[in-house]
């Protein structure tokens, strides 16, 4: 029967299973973020720029007039480089934590996306990549303000978006991971006060860590944000290749660990 042969000709042998990680689904996730961003860029940009600038002006000018200099730098120069890191932390950890939770639990967005040809690891990568891109761009705002206040610009500062991207990627993944750990939106307060606050204070952002007790210095060195701060300061005040490659490597390890944790925990929550 001709029909039979037709069916057989039309049915190809089963293709190879899909690759474990594909970039097309990541691009799909990014397309969605871009559509959302086109609607929300004004408030997002305002928050991401205004907050570090206000902090910089208040502490830099106010406190700076009392402190004068730290480690040979004007306080506003010391602070301007440090606030790049806190800005990166806030613009990546909060969306990673809160937006991801809301989308997963209240909006069921991820259920819809995982019914399309997207797997959890691609979904997590896409969400974190988007947040990291924003951190990479917005993280430069306080640096530009500090330059306006007299911080000498240097060509090495062109590396700041990259440093901010990698750090932001890691903290976005941290947020995604923790959003899938917390049982409810209320318990996020533990993370905001218990994790984020010490992270941004004990990192050499507002004061150098060598003024801290020895145990706190150890804690600071484990803090990925400290390595981000050191790298940003290096672009402004002088790069030492070996030391700074070490800081960068620490950030990459941080990213790798958080990626694994985020993917495993999100899969636990999204796939029954």
């Amino acid at each position, binding site marked *: 029967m001709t029909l039979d042969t037709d069916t057989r000709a039309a049915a190809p042998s089963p293709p190879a299973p899909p690759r474990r990680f594909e970039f097309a689904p990541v691009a799909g996730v990014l*397309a969605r973020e871009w559509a959302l961003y086109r609607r929300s860029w004004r408030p997002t940009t305002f928050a991401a720029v205004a907050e570090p600038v206000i902090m910089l002006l208040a502490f830099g000018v106010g406190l700076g007039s009392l402190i004068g200099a730290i480690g040979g730098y004007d306080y506003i120069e010391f602070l301007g480089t440090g606030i790049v890191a806190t800005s990166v932390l806030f613009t990546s950890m909060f969306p990673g934590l809160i937006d991801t939770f809301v989308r997963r639990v209240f909006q069921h967005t991820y259920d819809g996306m995982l019914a399309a040809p997207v797997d959890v690891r691609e979904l997590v990568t896409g969400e974190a990549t988007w947040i990291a891109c924003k951190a990479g761009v917005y993280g430069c705002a306080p640096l530009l303000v500090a330059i306006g206040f007299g911080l000498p610009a240097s060509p090495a500062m062109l590396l700041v978006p990259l440093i901010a991207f990698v750090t932001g990627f890691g903290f976005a993944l941290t947020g995604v991971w923790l959003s899938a750990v917390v049982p409810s939106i209320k318990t996020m307060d533990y993370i905001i006060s218990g994790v984020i606050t010490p992270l941004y204070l004990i990192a050499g952002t507002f004061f150098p860590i060598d003024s801290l007790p020895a145990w706190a210095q150890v804690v600071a060195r484990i803090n990925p944000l400290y390595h981000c701060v050191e790298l940003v300061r290096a672009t402004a005040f002088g790069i030492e290749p070996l030391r700074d490659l070490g800081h960068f490597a620490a950030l990459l390890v941080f990213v790798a660990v958080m990626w694994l944790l985020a993917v495993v925990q999100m899969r636990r929550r999204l796939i*029954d």
Partner: protein
Amino acid sequence: MSQPGQHSSTSTARRPATHGPAPDPSAPPAIELRGVVKRFGSFTAVNGLDLRVPSGVVFGLLGPNGAGKSTTMRMLTAQCLATSGEISVLGHPVPRASKRARAAMGVVPQHDNLDEELTVQENLEVFTHLYRVPRAQRPEAVERALRLAHLADRRHDRTDKLSGGMRRRLLIARGLVHRPRLVLLDEPTVGLDPQVRQDLWGLITALRAEGVTVLMSTHYIEEAERLADVVALMAKGRVVAQGAPADLIARHAGDTVEEYLVPPADPGDGVESRLRAAGVAVRRTGPTLSVLRPGELPDPLRAELGTGLARAGNLEDVFVTLTGERVE
């Protein structure tokens, strides 16, 4: 088992919506489940499910809440992993090659998950990306989906401005932007008013006319009877009966059913008990007692029942007869 449906697996024109000849049994099924079990801790949601959905049919999964319909749907997209058993969708083993299967199927979830901050058109555009529609074809795919959802004139409205019926139409159109060969509809009309429900029935019929395979879960009897070429009745995580609705009704309920008003507070020697004792298939709905196959009623009991109202048998009769449970 007879499998109504199309003659071949692909794009031949569909027969009218009567339940016609069996398809070519050698055609690969769109969906196949073998011995699928899904446990959540000590609770067994799906308990040894065997299901074969031929290509090109509208297949209804009918059963009450908790029968395992939604779990089954989620297993087909690998959003729920079977404890044991084998699943294949469009020839791809699931979950191993699930992404390939998902690329060729559309899913309409039971719970609305549209992006409320985005417009109608943007919601569709996002899914052309997620479903990997080639760049050059995306505008046309969005236009087609807008027409399908009758939302072309609302394209620039945010989805939180749409009515419930419009949202559901958009949700369905979103699952169709990439022209899937298989569509999963999980309780597509639950909570919708009758007018909107009939709109959606028209849409499902149109899909069938294009040769798309549709797997639809529902707990509405009428929906299953009207739309489905094949129905699988599910209860407690298993399929208790499967076939064309008319065949199932003829086999398990009979073509006509007679309804009698019998007070529900039936003492042990009441007419209901004696009917059951006489082996007559009956089922109760509030004050009404339905007698299946009334031709087999013994005369004395018929006299006692008085005059009844004859109606056509339906899938609810079949379901109650087979499981003792009601569907809706």
